[in-house]
């Protein structure tokens, strides 16, 4: 693979179709700058600021954009509110659609057959694979991202976090909790 891809890049560079420095910058962007830490900041603010939470749920792209996260694979973002009665989970059964500006590039499992096939038919089984057991009466809503709308789950703020700053709250927000395959960390799992 390495040899084949190197040959491809050499041809495209020689022809002037791509600039290797631009390639490096694209990689660096998604390896270092864009990732779930962006989404965690959005969620922490939604937990601490009721006005922002309302805005986020009403117009995800605008509220998220106000924190500087927008663009490719997040042109239309919708935030989904978890409550004690409703749990949201996001999948792309057709490929790998994912809100890049807030979560970065998707993990391998999100793009894999096991997740794409089962999330829409047996989400409780999928949650068990992640070690999550929801109460039987909790309704589950699965969102299959089949067009260009990208979904971000707003998990429930953990109890015992009164008075925490946004920076401290963000440490509780895991990537999986924003996809809906996990829950936020508990306060005792992080250092403030």
């Amino acid at each position: 693979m390495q040899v084949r891809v190197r040959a491809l890049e050499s041809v495209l560079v020689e022809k002037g179709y791509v600039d290797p420095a631009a390639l490096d910058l694209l990689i660096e962007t998604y390896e270092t700058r864009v990732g779930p830490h962006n989404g965690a900041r959005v969620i922490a603010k939604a937990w601490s600021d009721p006005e922002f939470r309302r805005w986020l749920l009403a117009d995800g792209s605008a509220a998220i954009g106000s924190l500087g996260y927008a663009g490719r694979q997040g042109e239309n973002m919708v935030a989904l509110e978890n409550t004690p009665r409703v749990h949201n989970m996001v999948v792309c059964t057709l490929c790998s659609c994912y809100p890049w500006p807030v979560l970065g590039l998707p993990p391998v499992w999100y793009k894999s057959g096991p997740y794409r096939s089962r999330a829409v038919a047996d989400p409780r089984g999928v949650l068990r694979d992640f070690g999550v057991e929801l109460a039987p009466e909790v309704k589950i809503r699965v969102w299959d991202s089949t067009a260009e709308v990208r979904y971000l789950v707003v998990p429930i703020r953990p109890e015992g976090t009164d008075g925490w700053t946004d920076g401290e709250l963000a440490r509780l927000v895991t990537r999986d909790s924003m996809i809906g395959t996990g829950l936020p960390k508990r306060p005792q799992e992080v250092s403030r």
Partner: protein
Amino acid sequence: MNGAQDMGGVHGFGAVVAESDEPVFHADWERRVFALTLAMGATGEWDLDASRFARENRPPDEYLDKSYYEIWLAGLEQLLAERGLATEAELTAGRELEPRKRIGKTLAPPDVAAELGRGSPTNRDVPRPATFQIGDRVRARNINPLSHTRLPRYVRGRIGTITAAHGCHVFPDTNAHGLGEEPQWLYTVSFDAHELWGPDADATLAVSVDAFEPYLEPAP
């Protein structure tokens, strides 16, 4: 097309296995394939819908046999070959053998941030009235095109409820094939699990898809 990419409801894949502390890429070639795909996309020689179709429209055994970025590589090579931008012989030789073609633009380093920040919005402000309203019951059409579509098989023929309307968006089914953007209303349609999976399904489950208007008809 009814390809291997349409995985919703397929049995036998096994448990979801998550890697702890997973890196963004697992090999250097994955990094380069990712960046080459984005950079070639930025030339304007094709769009995201054509790119998706190139990845998906391959024999199911091949699709399932390849890793994610191997599929991206196969899709990219196919688009380059179809447009005469790079031939198989060149990819084997690793150097230019055919005259280069004039392309839209080459993505330059100073433009990367703006390119990513802009993205490729698919919203189109067209004066087309929406056929369906929130709360309407609709049936996903039983269509089986050989061409690109974003209507998964597991909802075809099933009845659901419109829960959101997102305005008009580029229609992937035409756009992927160079047949124009043909913007269409896009809706979120929610289906009860019983409707999708039968009487034994999880009664607490609802599944939604985002469906373009041509995918839908009024429920009988």
